[in-house]
């Protein structure tokens, strides 16, 4: 039997798949059926049209590569960033942006922490407000405009995977993002991050 596995690569691959799915089945699959991980936390709402476009700017510019959005249940972390992130806060995020690295600080509860003006200056030139920063500059965000025809399509697509957008919201989407720059959208997205919990700090 060993010879069979060793010589036939397809059987080997099948055997590997069977072995590694044990871990997936034990740890991940149960989560698909748990209320905690599927129901939105209280006060969590789907993103508005402008914030949704801002989220896509966030992904496009690769912000999630350096910034995490997951506050863990560690005392010092909660002290710095605010209340620990709840599973129910990311139910409408497709895909989630928990991140995996903190070159820059965690952004899970960055909403309302800095003024819009601060974000504008910081995104155009991070070293203007944080001299020791090595974050790249994003000056083009103010010049690029949102592609408004895409917004209703995005919301309809998200609705298909369970984000409860109403027909009215989808119809109004284009007018909400009309004339908005990528900078406007991104700042709107950032300013709502983590604001679902009332006493976040």
């Amino acid at each position, binding site marked *: 039997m*060993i*010879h069979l596995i*060793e010589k036939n690569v397809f059987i080997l691959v099948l055997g590997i798949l069977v072995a590694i799915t*044990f871990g997936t*089945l*034990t*740890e991940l699959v*149960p989560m698909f*059926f*748990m209320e905690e991980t599927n129901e939105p936390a209280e006060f969590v709402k789907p993103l508005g049209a402008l914030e949704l476009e801002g989220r896509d700017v966030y992904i496009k510019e690769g912000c999630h590569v350096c910034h995490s959005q997951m506050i*863990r*249940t*560690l*005392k010092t972390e*909660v*002290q*710095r960033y605010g209340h*620990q992130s709840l599973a129910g806060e990311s139910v409408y995020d497709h895909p989630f942006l928990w991140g995996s690295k903190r070159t820059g600080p965690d952004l899970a509860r960055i909403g*309302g*922490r*800095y*003024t819009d*003006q*601060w974000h504008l*200056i910081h995104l155009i030139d991070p070293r*203007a*407000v*944080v*001299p*020791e920063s090595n974050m790249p500059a994003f000056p083009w965000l103010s010049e690029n405009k949102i592609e408004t025809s895409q917004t209703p399509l995005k919301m309809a697509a998200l609705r298909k995977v369970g984000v409860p957008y109403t027909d009215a919201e989808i119809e109004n989407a284009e007018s909400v993002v009309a004339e908005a720059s990528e900078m406007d959208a991104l700042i709107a997205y950032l300013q709502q991050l983590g604001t679902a919990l009332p006493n976040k*700090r």
Partner: protein
Amino acid sequence: MNMSLNLVVWGLVLVFLTYTLSVLLTNYFASKGTKDHSRAGETYDGVEEGFAPIPAWWAGAMIVTIVFAAIYLTLFPGMGNYKGLLSWTSEAQLIEKQIESQAVLQEKLDGYFQLDADVLVNNNDAMKLAYRIYQNNCAGCHGRHAQGAKHFPNLTDDAWLYGGDFETIKYSISEGRTGVMPAWEAVLNSEQLDDVSRLVMGEASAEGEQVYGIYCISCHGENKEGNALFGAPNLSDSSWVYGGSLEDIRESIAKGRNGHMPAQKRYLGEEEIHLLAAYLLHLGAKNND
């Protein structure tokens, strides 16, 4: 309820399968004994593959890990909804630690709250604590050394837009401030803007004085000394929140400004603000020595 039972059973079955399979396979190979050429493996380019027994220490370690896993998964959550015999959650552990450290912190803060600013600025422990509160809450805008940046005031100098006494600083931190400079390009033409900008920079002219005397004097005062009541800056000093070059000043006058200090009372308690205000005075004293 039913769901959680299903999940536990599901998890147990899988764990059981995984480990049983591993144990069985291990035993199978271990029983293959010493080099038995009749049951030897392949020969690759003249190199023989044999089946030596698995080392006892290795097999032993594996048994230990299996036993450990069984105990772990009984005591701690790891299979679906099963909470574990210890009912341990990371959130409960966090809250426990927070209560503990908050008690220590609150005691310190209460102590410092009783002290006056002039005592606090000389208290090293108080200033260290204040430094950390500052870094976490204020440094993002006002800079790591409170030196500020364009749009964000320098907190270490003597120039205070709204007043630099202890109580006023506490108020500014707690309640926030909004500094509004109107956009004068709606009213002044380009020449007038040039003239008054130069006046502010120190180049007096009759035209500049005239513009100033009509439009600027009510907020910024007769001698450009400013007015702390509504945060109108002193235009005769060298402290410029929005930049002190001719271009910057002209832009401030023409386009206006809308500076916003968010109210910190939402995030910080009275005791922390008390400490922070003392810290700023401490920094100012260090800076101006």
